[in-house]
């Protein structure tokens, strides 16, 4: 089966208020916009059909991205585990509105190709490869997974050009993982304490 096409529908109103939704996608980049999510989904499908021409369009995996704090976007995949991801999303959203001392901190240089923080709301059974499919070489993505009724673990992956200075980062090999490893295994490997959880794991795409 061919590689899926991950499309992210981002809600980011512009100063003139319209349009409010934009899409971007991996591994083939297709950009569209819409005034409402359904408009955008339709516009994206038209644009992606135009891009591929006679070639069959890959299976689409859809994600929604909303801003939870200035410059911080939460990404939720629309799939059979959306409700589980929504729990992570709401926990993250609440954490981001706490008093600053308790708020999750993100390193300023660990940003997506858009220049902002993107947090993928994941569940333990997601494969790392599934996250890698939804990023490019210039992206750093933060992965959040629920670990208890009240908390989430956050760890970071970055493409080869995703952070300016990779000093102190680890590779997947160094943490004994592969793209087949699950997010649950990833969290156990990279977040044994708070210090190590701040180190991005550099990956090769």
């Amino acid at each position: 089966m061919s590689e899926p096409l991950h499309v992210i529908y981002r809600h980011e109103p512009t100063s003139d208020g319209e349009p409010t939704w934009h899409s971007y996608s991996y591994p083939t980049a297709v950009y569209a916009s819409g005034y409402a999510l359904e408009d955008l989904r339709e516009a994206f499908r038209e644009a992606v059909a135009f891009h591929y021409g006679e070639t069959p369009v890959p299976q689409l995996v859809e994600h929604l991205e909303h801003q939870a704090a200035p410059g911080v976007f939460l990404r939720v995949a629309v799939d059979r585990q959306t409700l589980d991801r929504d729990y992570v999303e709401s926990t993250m959203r609440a954490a981001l509105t706490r008093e600053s001392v308790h708020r999750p901190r993100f390193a300023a240089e660990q940003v997506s190709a858009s220049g902002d923080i993107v947090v993928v709301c994941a569940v333990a059974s997601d494969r790392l490869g599934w996250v890698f499919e939804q990023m490019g070489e210039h992206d750093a993505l933060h992965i959040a997974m629920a670990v208890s009724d009240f908390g989430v673990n956050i760890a970071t992956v970055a493409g080869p050009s995703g952070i300016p200075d990779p000093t102190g980062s680890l590779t997947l090999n160094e943490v004994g993982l592969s793209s087949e490893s699950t997010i649950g295994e990833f969290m156990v490997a990279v977040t044994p304490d708070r210090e190590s959880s701040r180190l991005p794991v550099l990956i090769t795409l």
Partner: protein
Amino acid sequence: MGERWPEIKAGRLAAVLVRECGPPIRQNGSHRVFRSVDGQSTFTFAIHDRKTVPGSLARRILVMDARLTIEQARKAVRG
């Protein structure tokens, strides 16, 4: 967080893409397929010229898909 880029009209961004990447390799109305400056990949920009594009999206397109450096992208948008 990274530097916030200013919003840009889609028509102006398309003009920047034409200047940096060359004319679209295929076009139908506002659907335009461009080739990256290094010739390694193609991408589709299907946003109508009069619409506004967030700075974050402009940065992504210019750096990740057109494959300009951040400095080149910044200069291209300013110029």
